[in-house]
């Protein structure tokens, strides 16, 4: 699963293109490295939560608690913390890629591009948000 996700991440970076401009999503800076490292470390904790449906991928490029019932009661606080931390990192990632391209105003487009890629590449069984609400792939 980890390999799949890492592959997804790399594929997203390499193949996604901006609608508004030819941005370099592959750009690497100390900030982007720090964020990617943080996200990569957290992924081991998130992977089972995607699979169980506790966490889903939103259409705006962030995560959301989809079904807290999939997690034992005492762990639901940690579930929230994980999702909040991942969303912080994702927002920072989109902003840093835009900044590294010299166009901070691209952050919204980069977010949308990533959002679509995360959803397209999500394995079957994960919950994703589409135009009609939540659906299981």
């Amino acid at each position: 699963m980890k390999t799949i996700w890492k592959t997804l991440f790399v594929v997203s970076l390499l193949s996604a293109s901006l609608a508004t401009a030819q941005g370099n999503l592959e750009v690497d800076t100390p900030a982007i490295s720090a964020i990617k490292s943080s996200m990569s470390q957290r992924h081991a904790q998130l992977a089972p939560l995607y699979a169980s449906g506790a966490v889903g991928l939103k259409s705006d490029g962030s995560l959301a608690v989809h079904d807290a019932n999939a997690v034992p009661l005492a762990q639901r606080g940690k579930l929230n913390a994980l999702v909040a931390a991942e969303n912080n990192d994702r927002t920072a990632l989109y902003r840093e890629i835009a900044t590294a391209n010299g166009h901070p105003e691209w952050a919204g487009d980069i977010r949308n591009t990533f959002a679509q890629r995360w959803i397209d590449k999500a394995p079957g069984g994960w919950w994703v948000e589409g135009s009609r609400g939540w659906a299981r792939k």
Partner: protein
Amino acid sequence: MLDGTAGRIRLDQLTAAGRQWRAVQLDCRRLRLDEGRIQCADARVGGVPELADARLNLDFSTQSRAGRLTAQFANDARLTATLAAHGALDLQFSHMPVSLLARVWPAAVQWHPVGALSGRASVDGRRATVSARLENAGFSDASGSHAAEALAGDVRLSAVRQGDAWRWEMRAAWTAGGVFWDPVFVPSGVSLLAEGQVSGQEVTLFSSRLEAPGVGDITAKGRFDMADRQIIDAAVSVRRADLAVAVPQFVLPVVAPAQTERWQVAGWVDLDVQWVGGELHGVEVGLDQVGFAYLGQRFRVGPLSGHLPWHRDTPAQGHLQVDGLHWQKLDFAPFLLDMSVEQGRIKVDPARLPVLDGAVIVDRLTVAKTEDGWQGAGGFFMEPVSMRALTEALDLPEMVGTLSASIPGLIVTPRRAALDGALVIALFDGYVQATGLEVIEPFGLVPRLRADVVAEHLDMAQLTETFSFGAVSGFIDLALNDLQMAAWKPVRFDAAVRSTPGDYRRRISQRAVEHITALGGPSASAAIQRSFLQFFSDFGYGEIGVGCRLASGVCQMEGLEGPGADASPFTIVRGGGIPALNVIGYNRRVNWDELIARVKAAIASDAAPIIK
């Protein structure tokens, strides 16, 4: 008269608990009616879906208006209601499913209540008592964001009528299970003891005591206006709240969920809060051995103890004894902060924070509530700290000299720390000055720093000795404009280094020249070693000048001549005296990470210079 044969009792309308049922009927297996006494045994109820599975036994005297009703439900649940002639009602219930609640209270359906309730309740005109035990209870909304599981607990409530008021006392214990109320999880182990009075719309709490894991011992008393849902006056005290439990459990999930796992907190807090005349009147906070750390041990504060008061109408004096303040390996000695606390503002008295062989002096510091939240503003300066001690504490190459700083204006918010004015550091016989310095999200994953830095008259001899870069005598000036760092690594700057104008000895060692040329790659380094210059240990120079404009990971370099075409050579060191040499750079576009790697490699190889 009926004598015990089967029969039916019909009610056109039944009203109870604010609800109404029509055409209710009791189908009694044995019905006896005798001189105003109704006895209905083993009855089923029609017309009340909520009681469809219940078996009832009714014995009621229409003359004395006394009687007994017993209801037997599935799963051993049983309810007995006894009405005495003088109007006293006694209810006994055992294993009553909490899910029945959803039958009589439709709003409860969406919470899927489960569990069993056993106990007794009695009420007459002067006295009411309730004693109940809840077992295996729980509830959950559809998303599981508000839920409880495996709850168990006891409650005892008694009330006595005194004139128009009811005096009451209550004991409750929550003994098992847990509740998650997004975003906070609360485990069991909570007990409550309270007594008070209800009079009209006013509820008085004479005393109460709550004990729960992590929050210590909480006592409260006060008066409340139930009509306006407002506190009239009250006093709440918390004793020995354990921050190691309470903060991660109750505070961080609410105020900083994304950073719940980055902060570690310890120590104990006492808290007293008072309301008078419907307004918050005063707060007293006592801290005992409190400590907190961010991201493991990189930044640690504590133990600290002290007293922080706040009074609505008058300024109050508080103090904090800080016995530990650590950043990386930099340790401050214990210090005391005295402060004045008033409406929306904390003003810290001047203080001396000893560190290494010097100190940070807090000239003034005010923490105030602004439109953008809490903001700290102050002025600081430093009593000189020896660079030798500082660099050792920070795991940097040992430097000589002293560090003294003046920070006339510092503004700190949870998201940003910025200098209003200049940070000046005396270093290497010259000085370094930073202006426009700000750090955004210092506690975030990617702290960002911006600054403009200038340095003048830095002694190259000390500098090169410090960084084992060979030996260069003379002085340099540095301009580092628009410095931007992310995660404490540079991402953008416009830097220029130049020899300080003036008359002084200018020599550069063979080793330093090798290191400078090595930055251009291995072939450049080899070239000088093959030349006749290898016979000299040092050279005279006229001027040193190099610039780097960093952007997108690439350093665009220039020499003494200034900017030029990418392919054009540039002079880094212009020779002077005898013997003299020029150091020429050929590659104007250098990958920054590669450049740093080469600098590190050059310094690392310094122990074994090659002089052929």
